[in-house]
């Protein structure tokens, strides 16, 4: 569908940003007391202290796929279209991290189990009382232009992020260069999520090249410590990378280059993959794409298993205005009872989407298994509506992007609602309107994209806070929920935090039905041909991959 263009843009800006634009779903352990993270590898390989994620991956790929063949160009197809690839503070969407990871690296990274490991930092320390984060940098790393990656460079980069107004760095008070390879970041106030936000979401550019070539050049090119360098950037069309000959890991990258082609339509993209015109398809988590590629034995779907980067999608009612029927919690609850959500999700997603009923993926630490939830009970829905004074029902709108699933689901939901007297007309909107509604409020039912990493204080906060960045203007903000949220943020240990988070889930969903009904968890999946090895797509975090260790087995 040509509507895909709209849908894609809608999905990109919402999905990706929802994937913790400012932060990420961290590993649940609060790293405030542990100086060095244990690295969790299956292979009997490296020591953790100074090991970087890359080295562990090297060991893994050497142990795994057979004789590595170097050379060749990987062709990737995607609908994610960045407008900037090189000036990292301006790359705000999470779906663009796949590009950043080709030419740049961050201080911290993750392993398969979701633990934090070092990448450009060999050690790190988080001091909750002093509200500081200290990073010790890996030695001997250079940018692609040959200049050293050192503390000064780190400080400069972080300051660029602060200057651009990035939310990841708005809790930073100052950055201090302790010595050439040590940096201390002073926070304005302690926040347990800051380590990961700063560690994972900041990508380091060469200050020297920036000074020399300027910001315009930087936007369309790159100079980082990553395995590749931007060799061509045609906005909205393609991005080409060539090997960084001076990459810090000997022997890597295995590929000569990477060619990204941007698609405006996901069916065309899927066709291109099937025809072998691209080797990898990123962000193929639309159920139609997954279905289309099902059964093709030489195309493998890579999914994230440790929960990092997962988002949920649901239906959220507008509850801010008193005149709105959804202002009343009973009406919101009626909404939840009125539809057979399980059937809709399972049938329309051909079984690909996993159901969830709260702000967490099933199995995550924050998933409250005791949640009552809502069964499919139209009679109860009608009763609740009558109690709220809407015995005759009311009219409303359900907005939707034009992807197949969303549109079909919206239509199906509308039909169910009609049976209890709620007349919801379906209105297809584009990315512009969608963003507008997300930021400034809406009236009726809308799709709710939520980053459901196991940290409600961070992620739910961005919606629940009165000044939240997403959906906040369209919903109520019950004080008891806000209080609970703050308690979560201030929690010093994991057990208390999780306990409070369970309480918040119950309050939000069972009591208030504030965010309506979540439908499914949607982790980005990526597809690749079987001859593409070592790419580690979505392995450590749903939006990442490992360009350095990728090779073509053909």
């Amino acid at each position, binding site marked *: 569908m040509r509507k895909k263009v709209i849908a894609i843009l809608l999905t990109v800006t919402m999905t990706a940003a929802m994937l913790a634009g400012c932060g990420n779903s961290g590993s649940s352990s609060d790293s405030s007391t542990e100086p060095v993270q244990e690295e969790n590898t299956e292979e009997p390989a490296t020591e953790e202290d100074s090991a970087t994620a890359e080295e562990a991956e090297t060991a893994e790929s050497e142990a795994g796929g057979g004789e590595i063949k170097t050379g060749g160009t990987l062709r990737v197809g995607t609908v994610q279209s960045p407008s900037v690839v090189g000036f990292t503070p301006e790359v705000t969407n999470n779906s663009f991290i796949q590009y950043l990871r080709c030419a740049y690296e961050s201080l911290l990274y993750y392993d398969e189990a979701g633990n934090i490991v070092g990448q450009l930092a060999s050690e790190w320390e988080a001091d909750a009382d002093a509200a500081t984060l200290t990073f010790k940098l890996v030695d001997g790393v250079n940018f692609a232009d040959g200049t050293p990656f050192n503390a000064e460079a780190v400080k400069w980069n972080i300051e660029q992020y602060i200057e651009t107004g990035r939310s990841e760095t708005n809790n930073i008070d100052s950055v201090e260069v302790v010595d050439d390879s040590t940096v201390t970041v002073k926070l304005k106030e302690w926040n347990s999520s800051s380590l990961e936000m700063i560690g994972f979401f900041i990508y380091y550019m060469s200050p020297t090249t920036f000074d020399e070539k300027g910001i315009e050049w930087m936007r369309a090119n790159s100079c980082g410590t990553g395995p590749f360098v931007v060799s061509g950037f045609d906005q909205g069309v393609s991005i080409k990378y060539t090997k960084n000959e001076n990459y810090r890991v000997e022997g890597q990258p295995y590929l000569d280059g990477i060619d990204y082609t941007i698609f405006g339509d996901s069916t065309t993209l899927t066709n291109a993959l099937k025809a072998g015109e691209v080797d990898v398809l990123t962000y193929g988590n639309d159920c139609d794409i997954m279905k289309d590629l099902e059964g093709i034995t030489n195309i493998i779907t890579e999914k994230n298993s440790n929960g990092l980067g997962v988002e949920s999608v649901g239906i959220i009612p507008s509850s801010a205005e008193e005149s709105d029927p959804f202002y009343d919690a009973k009406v919101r609850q009626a909404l939840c009872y009125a539809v057979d959500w399980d059937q809709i999700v399972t049938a329309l997603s051909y079984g690909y989407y996993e159901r969830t009923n709260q702000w967490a993926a099933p199995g995550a630490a924050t998933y409250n298994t005791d949640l009552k939830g809502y069964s499919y009970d139209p009679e109860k829905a009608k009763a609740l509506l009558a109690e709220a004074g809407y015995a005759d029902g009311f009219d409303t709108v359900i907005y939707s992007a034009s992807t197949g699933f969303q549109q079909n689901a919206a*239509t199906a939901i509308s039909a169910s609602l009609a049976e209890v007297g709620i007349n919801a007309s379906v209105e*297809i909107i584009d990315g512009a309107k969608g963003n507008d509604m997300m930021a400034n409020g809406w009236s009726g039912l809308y799709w709710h994209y939520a980053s459901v990493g196991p940290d409600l204080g961070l992620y739910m906060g961005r919606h629940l806070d009165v000044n939240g960045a997403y959906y906040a203007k369209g919903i109520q903000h019950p004080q008891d929920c806000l209080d609970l949220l703050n308690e979560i943020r201030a929690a010093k240990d994991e057990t208390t935090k999780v306990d409070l988070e369970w309480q918040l889930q119950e309050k939000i969903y069972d009591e208030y039905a504030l965010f309506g009904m979540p439908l499914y968890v949607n982790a980005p999946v990526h597809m690749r041909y079987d001859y593409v090895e070592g790419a580690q797509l979505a392995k450590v975090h749903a939006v990442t991959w490992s360009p350095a260790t990728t090779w073509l087995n053909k």
Partner: protein
Amino acid sequence: MKKEKEAKVLTPAQERRKQFLDTFFATIPVRIGFGIIAVMIVCAVFAPLVAPYDPYTQDLTNMLQGMSGAHFFGTDALGRDLLSRIIYGARASLSVGLVSTLIAGSVGIALGLMAGYLGKWIDAVIMRVMDAMMSIPVVILALFIGSILGKGLGNIMLCIGIVMMPGYARMTRGQVLSVKQLDYVTAGKISGATRMKNAVKHILPNCIAPNLVLATMNLGTAILTEAGLSYLGMGINPPTASWGAMVSDGYRYLQEYPHIAIIPGIFIILTVWAFNVCGDALRDATDPRLRGTR
């Protein structure tokens, strides 16, 4: 001996009508086309009676079925009966075609009349604005206007109507200019008829025929434009059935369930073809100059 039938004598009006109909229905394609249009109109008007199922009823256990006894054209991704959706789609397509043509026609003809009859700077201004509108490609202008007005049946009608307006304005103006010279119009002026009366009584009837031909051809274009807009995602909202949207929705299933995309497309082709063919025939039947050029 057989009683000789008396040769029927027709009045001039009846004679003209007979000739018109004979010319119109001369060839087979036209007859087929007219038949198709008739069927489509019946479907559109009597859709609830003709369609075997409700086009909005979903059956999530019966999705993407092929052609069968129960569902003549199969079902779509939500388990809705395709045949019923096609029939209701006729409603959407024809109403978009008709209403947008009416809008375009009425405003366009009015503007054309003003421009042609009043002349001078009114003519210049109106024509330049029409030229400007015609310089912007139809699809782009339609997307533009569509994104302002929003989606939905009514807005699409308005949008396509606006976009097609210049054609009628130009055509009418041309007609007015040529008719203006004719003696009886001048005679009307001399006899003191007001400008308005003059226009309506003398000029307007002469403009109708060519505009009617234009309208018939444009109906096809309007239907195609709506299909294109729905395809690009700027068209009619679900769950309203629209052929263009159905093709668009069916694209992702093309490999396994081609009928979902192909069948609506065939109906688009048939309907547009029928209107074009009838438009041609109408032109031949009304324009004596062109008789014999078919």
